[in-house]
């Protein structure tokens, strides 16, 4: 006789977050607390030009006057912003020229994460930028990309080496005063990735950033800026992990995308920050502002698989400014145990003949709460705007919640907007059917959830899709019941 459901549950409960290790690397970490001096110190530590410091100070002054938003469908203890260290970097670092120079401990960290930098370099042809705590530690393929005129580097390097581009675009999509977390990020961001694709260039490989929070008591505030010049194309991947800790860790990132005329940006995220333990202790607070602007005939496509974090507050958005531009949002958000996610998108139709598509799949298990929150706005000038939204929720067990809050505002009579949402559970008959075909319940659930999420998984680049499928399975383990 197979083991009972109870036994299965017990076994799964003891399964731990796979990425919850901590790497013992010597770090330079700022003392806790945030004031103007901290901002100046960060800027100084990074040898930034004066204009950058000024920009940060302005953001900091704005932030001081702002209040933490409370409209989202999440409950958490507000972080004490004075009890966080705003800068932590692996020590002994000058810029690595090649991977051989990288601290072996660090290489080991990434091997554990399943990101073998060497392997990636040789096999999959993915260029990787790695941000540990607050600092970019390794960027691969830099030279190969440079030949095509593609700039792919840490944002700190970009500030120094390409100030004209950074100055021109930084904060244009997410103004420093946009919201509480964006303002905080603008003041204290320590690193992140920068990417520029020149006119007409199709980036020959996936660009990828891996983020990791390592040190205790630190916040991570990275800033990503992607500019796709006219007629160019880039596919960008982002992955995140953090060690298991009892305390909550703060992550407040900003990602700005600029798609100039006829350009296309595909931005994929697999977010697997530490979600906290099964009692709801610890876990990352993930407050992220992501937004892209589409110029004429351009396209921005956001794809996200959100399985981690104790709290997720995230709305990757598209401003469809140019005529005929296209915005897409594909999302899978899985919450288990005590996780809470409030995520969705905003599609702002400004240009004529703009189109947007939203596919959101929420899966809630355990005692978690999972909300979709979205806005589709059609401005008066946006003739012939089209939107299609579909938000499906799957509930597993009877202690979780699934919520849908779509806002639709149409101010143009030629708009065509369709929104659909459904809520369902995994049917006992589906499980029995699978069982009869020899598939055990755990595997059956994975199969059904993968089927439910398929439309979104299909949008991920190959390398990520497999990882994402595995993550879905891991995240839902122990939710049978």
């Amino acid at each position: 006789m197979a083991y009972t459901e109870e036994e299965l549950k017990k076994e799964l409960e003891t399964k731990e977050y796979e990425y919850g290790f901590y790497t013992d690397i010597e770090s330079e970490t700022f003392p806790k607390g945030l004031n103007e001096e901290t901002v100046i110190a960060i800027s100084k530590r990074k040898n930034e030009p004066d204009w950058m410091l000024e920009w940060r100070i302005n953001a900091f002054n704005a932030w001081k006057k702002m209040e933490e938003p409370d409209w989202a469908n999440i409950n958490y203890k507000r972080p004490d912003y004075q009890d966080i260290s705003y800068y932590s970097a692996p020590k002994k670092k000058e810029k690595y020229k090649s991977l051989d120079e990288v601290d072996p401990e660090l290489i080991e960290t990434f091997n554990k994460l399943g990101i073998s930098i060497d392997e990636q370099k040789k096999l999959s042809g993915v260029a990787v930028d790695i941000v540990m705590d607050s600092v970019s530690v390794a960027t691969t393929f830099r030279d190969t990309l440079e030949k095509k005129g593609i700039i792919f580097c840490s944002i700190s390097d970009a500030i120094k080496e390409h100030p004209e581009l950074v100055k021109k675009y930084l904060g244009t999509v997410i103004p420093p005063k946009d919201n509480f977390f964006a303002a905080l990020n603008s003041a204290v961001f320590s690193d992140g990735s920068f990417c520029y694709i020149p006119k007409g260039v199709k980036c020959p490989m996936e660009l990828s950033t891996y983020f990791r929070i390592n040190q205790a008591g630190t916040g991570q505030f990275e800033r990503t800026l992607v500019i796709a010049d006219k007629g160019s194309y880039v596919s960008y991947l982002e992955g995140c992990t953090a060690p298991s800790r009892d305390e909550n860790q703060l992550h407040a990132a900003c990602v700005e995308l600029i798609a100039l005329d006829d350009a296309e940006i595909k931005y994929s995220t697999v977010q697997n920050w530490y979600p906290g333990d099964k009692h709801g202790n610890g876990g990352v607070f993930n407050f992220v502002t992501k937004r892209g602007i589409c110029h004429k005939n351009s396209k921005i496509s956001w794809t996200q698989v959100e399985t981690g974090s104790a709290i997720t507050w995230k709305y990757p958005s598209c401003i469809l400014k140019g005529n005929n531009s296209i915005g897409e949002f594909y999302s899978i958000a899985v919450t288990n145990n005590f996780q809470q996610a409030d995520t969705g998108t905003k599609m702002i139709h400004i240009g004529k003949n703009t189109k947007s598509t939203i596919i959101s799949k929420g899966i809630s298990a355990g005692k978690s709460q999972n909300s979709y929150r979205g806005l589709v706005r059609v401005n008066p000038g946006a003739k012939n705007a089209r939107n299609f939204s579909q938000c499906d929720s799957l509930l597993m067990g009877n202690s979780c919640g699934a919520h849908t809050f779509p806002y639709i505002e149409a101010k143009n009579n030629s708009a065509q907007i369709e929104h659909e949402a459904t809520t369902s559970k995994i049917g006992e008959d589906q499980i029995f059917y699978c069982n009869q075909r020899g598939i055990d319940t755990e595997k059956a659930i994975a199969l059904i959830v993968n089927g439910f999420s398929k439309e979104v998984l299909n949008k991920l680049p190959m390398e990520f899709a497999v990882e994402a499928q595995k993550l879905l399975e891991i995240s839902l383990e122990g939710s049978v019941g």
Partner: protein
Amino acid sequence: MLEINNLHASVDGKQILKGIDLKVSSGEVHAIMGPNGSGKSTLSTVIAGHEDFEIDKGEILFEDEDLIDFNTEERAHKGIFLSFQYPVEIPGVTVTNFIKTSINQMRKANGLDEMPANVMLKKIREKSDLLKIDSKFLSRSLNEGFSGGEKKRNEIFQMAMLEPKLAILDETDSGLDIDALKIVANGVNMLRNDDTAVVLITHYQRLLDYIVPDFVHVLSDGKIVKSGNKNLAIELEAKGYDWVK
């Protein structure tokens, strides 16, 4: 192979099977007929191990092991296949993906390695050709939007892929036109050999023209009230079920 002794089963406290005795040996085809509500589908579901049904009395032995100790998937691993009267939809999971998962889980349970992709592919092609299944059909979501006939044909396709020892076909003939019926019957006949057994649950004699049974049993109010050879089915068709009551 299958031996059912004095089986009593109920659902939600309501007794449905009231003492079934049935013995199926390898190489045999049995047909179980009976009016609506006589307990035909319950019998097949209980053999497959559905948890909603309570076995109150009696036993089901499969190759001399009492099935009560095994859950649904373990029974499947032993080689019991149930073709559902109402196959379930699983959106987003393709027929191919599903059968792959199923086969590999069966193999895993029986200590075998996963079936290599090329072998799997070849087998899928071979079986789908035999059952005249279009390759486009294989990449559709399992049973989603399938017509009644497509669903049944898909069940037979899975049976052909899994090659079970015992196949129980619950009303597989209902809702099929004559061409589909022939294809389904052909699939079942292919499975027939000295080591396998088939239990056909049906309301009508029609299917038995194509799959000739060795034994015919009539189920009425939770009991087998009459058993005989294939002529019994013909007699039933002519005289109606009231005749055996």
